[in-house]
């Protein structure tokens, strides 16, 4: 894993933030270097201990018997859905909230889209006894009420963001505004490998426990390394976490599976991309503090993205991932909403694991391209699908998904 302390990944990355934030960002850079990279005061030891005892790590690397049979190759699942809270998100949230404590901060803010990062942050903040406020787009609040409720139950404040379309993009902007006002006492727990340096590197480091474990488990369980690793990419934190320790293993192909949404075409007029495939289709630009690949119109206005899974519904992507794609180390691919829903039902029925809709994208790609993925494939199960039940009912009933169970009794919702 490359540790970049200059915050650049090729031309990507950097620190494109309002001046008011720069001191906080410099303070964070310093803390990142000391605590995370140098384990000062035993920070990383405490982090690892809490990840184990509170978070439930290590997560298994499970052979998926039926998928292995179906695709006639060895399919392994890295079970991040078993992490406390139900997704890989806690790896990062716990790390950052703990770091905030080491830095002497008194308050946590965070943005959330699907609510997974928000719930993870709220859990970590409750666990470590620090007040926490979560910004969430109004529209996402309506799409993900159980997660909103979980945050409230964990004692966090949830602040609705009403500007614009009311999704993740707006929530990030709003959290940056809060942070700009409160930098001295507050740490902003960003939810993915995005934002200004040191966030992309730091979040990657916290998430890289995924591939650290998976690499070791691969050796133990099948005596080698996988031929390919698949992970869905929204901001890219689970992707980077699942890839980081394999980047130097040239024989391991790394696939970042993005949300193809309903189409890869964009509507420039309306400023809408009906997908979230910034690695596959986006261009170089600056958003939320970093230079990276983005969904933007000709002028540079950020487009509204779309995905059936709110957690992938973001117009940007982590700068390191953009770099690794340009370097041809990571292969950007995408699958559409329908394929993701089908894969959701397939994994649920055949393996007894209900994946997050985000995660389902990785399995949809496996389904479409298994022949080209080699003998042994690791798929990162970034989260569980309990949060998605409402969406699945709604989205499945809109479509003709051949392998969906009869859901007429759920028409109209849960």
């Amino acid at each position, binding site marked *: 894993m490359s540790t970049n302390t200059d915050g650049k990944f090729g031309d990507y990355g950097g620190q494109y933030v*309002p001046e008011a934030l720069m001191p906080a960002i410099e303070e964070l850079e310093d803390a990142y270097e000391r605590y995370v990279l140098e384990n000062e005061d035993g920070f990383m030891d405490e982090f690892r201990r809490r990840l184990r005892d509170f978070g439930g790590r290590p997560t298994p690397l499970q052979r998926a018997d039926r998928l292995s049979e179906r695709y006639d190759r060895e399919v392994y699942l890295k079970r991040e859905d078993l992490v406390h809270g139900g997704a890989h998100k806690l790896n990062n949230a716990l790390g950052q909230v703990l770091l905030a404590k080491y830095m002497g901060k008194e308050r946590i803010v965070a943005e959330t889209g699907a609510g997974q990062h928000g719930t993870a942050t709220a859990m970590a903040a409750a666990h470590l006894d620090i007040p926490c406020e979560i910004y969430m787009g109004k529209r996402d609040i309506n799409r993900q009420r159980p997660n909103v409720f979980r945050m409230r139950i964990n004692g966090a404040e949830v602040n609705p963001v009403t500007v614009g379309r009311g999704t993740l993009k707006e929530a990030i902007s709003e959290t940056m505004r809060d942070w*700009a006002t409160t930098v001295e006492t507050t740490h902003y727990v960003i939810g993915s490998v995005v934002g200004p340096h040191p966030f992309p590197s730091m979040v990657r480091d916290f998430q890289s426990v995924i591939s650290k474990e998976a690499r070791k488990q691969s050796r133990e369980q099948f005596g080698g390394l996988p031929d390919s690793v698949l992970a869905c990419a929204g901001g890219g934190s689970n992707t980077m976490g699942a890839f980081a320790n394999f980047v130097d293993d040239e024989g391991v192909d790394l696939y970042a599976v993005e949300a193809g949404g309903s189409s890869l075409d964009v509507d420039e007029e309306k400023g809408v991309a009906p997908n979230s495939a910034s690695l596959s289709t986006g261009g170089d630009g*600056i*958003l939320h*503090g970093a230079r990276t690949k983005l969904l933007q119109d000709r*002028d540079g206005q950020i487009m509204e993205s779309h995905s059936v899974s709110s957690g992938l519904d973001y117009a940007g992507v982590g700068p390191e991932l953009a770099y690794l794609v340009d370097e041809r180390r990571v292969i950007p691919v995408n699958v559409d909403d329908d394929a993701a829903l089908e894969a959701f039902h397939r994994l649920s029925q055949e393996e007894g694991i209900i994946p997050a809709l985000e995660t389902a994208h990785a399995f949809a790609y496996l389904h479409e391209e298994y022949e080209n993925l080699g003998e042994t494939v690791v798929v990162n199960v970034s989260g569980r699908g309990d949060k998605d039940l409402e969406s699945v009912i709604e989205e499945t009933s809109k479509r003709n998904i051949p392998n969906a169970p009869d859901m007429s009794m759920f028409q109209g919702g849960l």
Partner: protein
Amino acid sequence: MSRVPEAFEDGPAFIPYLAVGDPDYESSLEYVEALERGGADLIELGLPFSEPIAEGPTIQSAVVRSLEGGMTPTRFFEFVEELDVDVPLVCMTYYNLIYQYGDEPGPRPFVEKAAEVGIDGFVVPDLPAEEAGPLREACDEFDRDLVFIVAPTTRGERLERIMDQVSGYVYVQARLGVTGAQEDVSDQTGQSLDRLAQWDVPKAVGFGIKTGEHAANIVAGGADGIIVGSALVDIVAEGHENGDSAAEVADRLETKARELKDGALRGVEQRVPHPERQ
């Protein structure tokens, strides 16, 4: 040549901000012209970006109105060409719009075009000094100014790095946070001005100034100029909501501008000699 220095020649500069195209192209032309009539020494023209991370709710809403009205960088340049004002103009926008404009990547085409239509300088809230190299170069090439924002938290090396690159004026952020009119003016301002005293560039203070009295206090405290955005955008927003005519709104803007300009002038008289500043 950038005309920015002219704004600071005759006493304190009153620098109003409006989002171009808010709530529509035509009204917006009238509003900017009203500001000049009200006494503006330099005008900051906001080119709306979809993710205005440094703005508070007032300017966010202005941005939304403007974008919904079809504002784009191209329209913005047309606007500036059409605009009938005589004061220096500074374009305030986010870096991605500057970066994407034109055929080649990077800020040069944007700056070239801006210079051509009569923009004298730029303020880019999400572009820190560390990343400003290419834009600074383009500004030099086309003789434009590059204004930087200095926050209450900006100190030491960072401050020096910024002051190395700044030209035209330095935008002194009066308090932490985002743009938006406030009931009172922060006392962080005096400290910030103190820190900047050693640099020979005009210091214009912004963030939260709302009344003539604020303006007077700030200038009395040593500022070379005041920047006012949200208090003016509020007038546009209110007029829009009430369905008032553009002429009425323009009148109100002019009146408000005059109040602020007068306040600034009053502030000069209230200045007390300060031991540490010359």
